[in-house]
């Protein structure tokens, strides 16, 4: 085990692809709004990990990717605050956050 695993770009890329895939899997499969929000956070994490991996291995200036990921984290925090307040408002109106019950027009 002479080779250092953390100096290889493809391991980080595969980890990020796994996070994206499992985030999309959860986004389709979950039947509550909060579960879908958690899966969305996993997709954000996949994007951040991809950016950081390329920033470490292929980019001319290593500070740029870190600043970009910092901005992604800030925007994700804002997005979570808005989404959770929407979820709480939806729960007040419908007494449920299950996506199958959130419908007013039933055919």
């Amino acid at each position: 085990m002479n080779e250092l695993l953390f100096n290889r770009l493809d391991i980080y890329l595969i980890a990020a692809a796994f996070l994206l895939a499992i985030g999309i899997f959860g986004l389709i499969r979950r039947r509550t709004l909060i579960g879908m929000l958690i899966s969305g956070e996993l997709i954000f994490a996949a994007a951040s990990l991809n950016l950081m991996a390329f920033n470490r291995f292929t980019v001319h200036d290593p500070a740029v990717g870190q600043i970009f990921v910092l901005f992604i984290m800030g925007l994700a925090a804002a997005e979570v605050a808005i989404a959770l307040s929407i979820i709480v408002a939806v729960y007040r109106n419908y007494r449920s956050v299950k996506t199958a019950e959130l419908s007013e027009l039933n055919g």
Partner: protein
Amino acid sequence: MNSFPASGIVLNAIFLLALATLVGGALLAVFSSRLIRSVCGLAISCVGLAGLYYFLHSPFLALMEILIYVGAVCVTIVFAIMLAEPDEPAADNGGRSVFWSGLSLVVAAAIFAGLAWLGIHGDWASPKKLASDGSLEAIGRSLLTTYSLAFELISLALLVAILGALAIARTGRTKA
């Protein structure tokens, strides 16, 4: 690398531990039926991601990941779960549920296979020389010079998000 003979093995083991934490937390976040366990999985996954950031030469982002995701985002989601008490409903009308699970599994597997193939076979060139060392000092310098507009705009976005969250969550409070 240095004089300690087994340091490569130890470093590889710590890296694999961070990777396993990331993958295991993500699996727990997606597959558990209780949403509070799902949030715990997200927090575990974020700790693993912070470990990977540390290995990518960015201890600053590792600290920020733990501070923002584990400290703020997960705690906020826990509050929402306590307010709304949502548990994943039991699988009803079996046929459609199986169809959607199979479809999401196929989509996720296709995306993972495609991206992993691209990541392995891509020709990623490393740069000849670096413009900065990527240290905290370099980050702070470029945040206040090159990226100062984006820095101010994200503070504005956070302010608008706080006000919007307050305004949305306030409506209907008297009715309830």
